[in-house]
């Protein structure tokens, strides 16, 4: 390959002319690096042509097994409308950055404003930011916000026993700085054990966290009562949810949620090895404690409505160690995709899709339940997309056997599988049921 970066446009003559103007012979003289820490440039990384790199990567990724995934637990695969890939890829969007100069960045600012508005509509809360990294970091930010809020006090955060370990691990790290303790409360038959939670809550609790749908897909019927527990003890009430489920479920604001967190990438970004879009919404009372960027409406010198980043004094580049969060680079481009996808589906499409997540899960559970040695669902809750499946044989062995048949499922306990169904894998329900029957019988 050539000697230089293919993405530096300089011809040799141009480089020489520029060096001449600087009065030097060699670009190396511009590096003011003491000899003691100089490096010889030998990383041992070979360069390749564009086609070669693409081919080689494609070959390597081809070592991934081709499995039909019935996987969820916080990361979901929904159909991404073509218009999303097409228009999100426009370079004016894709290759732009944070809108520090709003006059030249109206397009992205307006999309982010529309994204915030979408989240406001779905959650029923007053304010949504234009993203943090993922559901786990959004939860961590909520915990930190609870601690610094004047209306709450305490040193413990109560979280459900059924919580994805990765999410809990992130929360533990976000909570370590303000020295918050994370404590689990029990679940009963797939949803919150309200009596146990009530016993556990006291004045030392700064935040109560509940999910609907839960990590096991159960729709929590007692969100209102859980909110009352939080309110009784002046704790922040944080509800974790899913952007698509919100199109159908009761808006969290109506059950008393102070903060809503979750992942919004399920709309607009398909399964992508865990990349997320952290949804964060709250009520007006916490406006000045919100982490991350906010886009607001403004007016320009010609009297037209325009958009701008606003309330930036909360942020790290101004407030430094007193900022509400350290977040700078966020997930704006995923928010753009989510806004586009939601617009494409429209309210009817979103409701239909959300309803299909309930009915498909029910259909699949009924089918699996017919298999001897298999029980699904294992609780009385309504489910969204996913649910646990009890199996007589060890779950891991069944997971392995199903992989050999071309299907990926979760093994979440010794005798529990979990499966997730959306429109992208629904047509493989029959083959999955057949394979599980074969494996189990």
């Amino acid at each position, binding site marked *: 390959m050539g*000697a*230089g*970066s293919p*993405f*530096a*446009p300089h011809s040799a003559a141009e480089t020489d002319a520029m*060096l001449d103007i600087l009065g030097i012979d060699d670009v190396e003289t511009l*590096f*003011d690096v003491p000899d003691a820490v100089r*490096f010889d*440039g030998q*990383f041992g*990384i070979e360069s*390749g042509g564009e086609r070669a790199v693409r081919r080689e990567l494609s070959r*390597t*990724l081809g070592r*991934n097994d081709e*499995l039909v995934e019935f996987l969820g*637990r916080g*990361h979901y695969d929904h159909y991404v409308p073509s218009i999303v890939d097409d*228009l999100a890829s426009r370079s004016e969007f894709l290759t732009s950055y944070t809108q520090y*100069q709003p*006059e*030249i960045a109206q397009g992205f600012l*307006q999309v982010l404003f*529309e994204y915030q*508005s979408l989240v406001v509509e779905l959650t029923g809360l007053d304010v949504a930011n234009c*993203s943090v990294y993922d559901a*786990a970091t959004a939860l961590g930010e909520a915990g930190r916000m609870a601690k610094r809020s004047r209306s709450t006090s305490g040193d413990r955060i109560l979280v459900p026993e059924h919580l*994805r370990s*990765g999410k809990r*691990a992130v929360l533990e790290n976000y909570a370590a700085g303000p020295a918050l303790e994370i404590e689990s409360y029990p679940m009963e038959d797939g949803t919150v054990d309200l009596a146990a939670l009530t016993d556990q809550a006291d004045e030392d609790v700064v935040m109560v966290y509940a999910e609907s749908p839960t990590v096991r897909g159960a729709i929590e*019927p007692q969100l209102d009562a859980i909110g009352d527990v939080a309110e009784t003890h002046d704790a922040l009430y944080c509800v974790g949810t899913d952007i698509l489920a919100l199109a*159908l*479920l*009761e808006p969290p604001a109506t059950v008393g949620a102070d903060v809503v967190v979750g992942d919004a990438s399920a709309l607009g970004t398909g*399964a992508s*090895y865990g*990349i*997320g879009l952290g949804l964060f919404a709250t009520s007006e009372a916490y406006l000045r404690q919100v982490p991350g960027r906010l886009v*607001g409406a*403004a*007016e*320009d*010198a*010609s009297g*037209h409505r325009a958009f701008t980043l606003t309330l930036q*004094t909360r942020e790290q580049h101004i*407030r430094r160690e007193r*900022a509400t969060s350290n977040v*700078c*680079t*966020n*997930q704006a*481009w995923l928010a753009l995709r989510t806004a586009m996808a939601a*617009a494409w589906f*429209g*309210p009817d499409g979103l409701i239909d899709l959300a309803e299909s997540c309930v*009915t498909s899960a*029910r259909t699949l559970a009924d089918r699996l339940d017919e298999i001897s040695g298999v029980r699904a669902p294992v609780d009385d809750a309504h489910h969204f997309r996913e649910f646990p499946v009890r199996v007589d044989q060890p779950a891991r062995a069944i997971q392995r056997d199903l992989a050999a048949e071309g299907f990926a499922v979760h093994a979440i306990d010794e005798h529990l599988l979990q499966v997730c169904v959306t429109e992208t894998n629904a047509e493989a329900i029959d083959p999955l049921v057949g394979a599980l029957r074969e494996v189990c019988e």
Partner: protein
Amino acid sequence: MTYDQARWTADEDRYEPLLVEKRERTVEIEDSPLPADLTRDELSLPSVAEPDLARHYTRLSQMNYGIESGPFPLGSCTMKYNPSFTEDVAADPQAAVHPARTSSTVQGTLEVCHRLQDYLGRIGGMDAVSLQPPAGAAGEFAGILIAKAYHEDNGNDRNEVVIPDSAHGTNFASAAMAGYDVVSLPSDDGRVDVGALEEAVSDDTAALMLTNPNTLGLFERDIEEIAAIVHDAGGLLYYDGANLNALLGRARPGDMGFDVMHYNVHKTFATPHGGGGPGAGPIGVTDELTQYLPSPLVRKTATGFEYYDPEQTIGKVHGFYGNWPVLLRAYAYIARLGDEGLADASAKAVLNANYLASQIEYDVPYDPFHHEFVASAGEQDAADVAKRMLDHGVHPPTTKWPDIVGEALMTEPTESESRRTLDQLADAFNAVASEDEATLEHAPERTAARRIDQVAAARDPILSWQALDEQH
């Protein structure tokens, strides 16, 4: 050069209308598969047909400026060209797997992760790398948590992180998030004041966070002495990788004595900034700190690749494995450039910054700088200068920061700009330098929106179309 940005105007009050202003629909939830007490009553959202949506987003894109529109010398952000082929790489359906797949079924993905861990280790002079942090600030947070775990393991209770006053705001915020008190370090002639550092470090020092070259583009020439002072006090040295594009192939943080670092792959390794993100902020550490890295890491086994948890892991800073499609693009970029391409990228980035600085009339008080320089707008207001530069078809520099330069214009052209483009950039700087205050205050005129009143917007925040509606 001049530039007239597209400006779609609906009427005398609005530019391109909001979707909700085009058509909204309220749908009642009826015959739902769920009991009514679990569902909402209705949902009101825009309902706009695809042809109109296509036009909406196309118009909005035309009212936005990216690297492919023109030069974007935003200091500290490394807005270099994002190679198109990396988009195809990221769109490979084979890469679009679910993160809960068992290791044995995603050997290809793990192999790419393992190679990228290895590449980044070589580039930074680090012994082990975690790809998990989803942004530079998340890398800082993870790195400081690692320092904390290391000190706790050694029975040391240290509560301070020392940070030069010219550092990125995220450094202060990340240290505070990890529970540390921040000790701000004054600078001496644009660099770390070694005497002040000696005063600042103590048994309480957990780490020094440093950017090198620093935000003025200056290499911290005393880095060995700085490292010795911090290490002698029992502290660790954290490298903020925001400015790594200056040093590829010339110096490595690991060789300078840094113990922990983050890489901003969206800066150094050319992944698109996406209007604010996603980026990725992998972290590298020395052998001694490998056991604390976020969980899990990828390692090679006799038969393939597997995940494992480092012995004393700090846990996680992202729910899954970070921003995988961004990491995949970065891998492709590194593999495309190799040793020589990476070294050339830094050579041209530093050459471009020096050439551009030599062509502008504004004073550049600190040198020798590398990939970026900080000019001073002098008597002019740097924010006004930036607004006026927009009319000349270029994105302006970062303004009013770092504080050490009055009316700062922090400029980072990157290696992607040709001499011709740099000359156009210089023309823009110089045209604005000779303009009067009134012209500057009225700028910009050619952008989609005219000067926006940000103070009023913050005084009375309107953050959704619902809030706009209430106001009317």
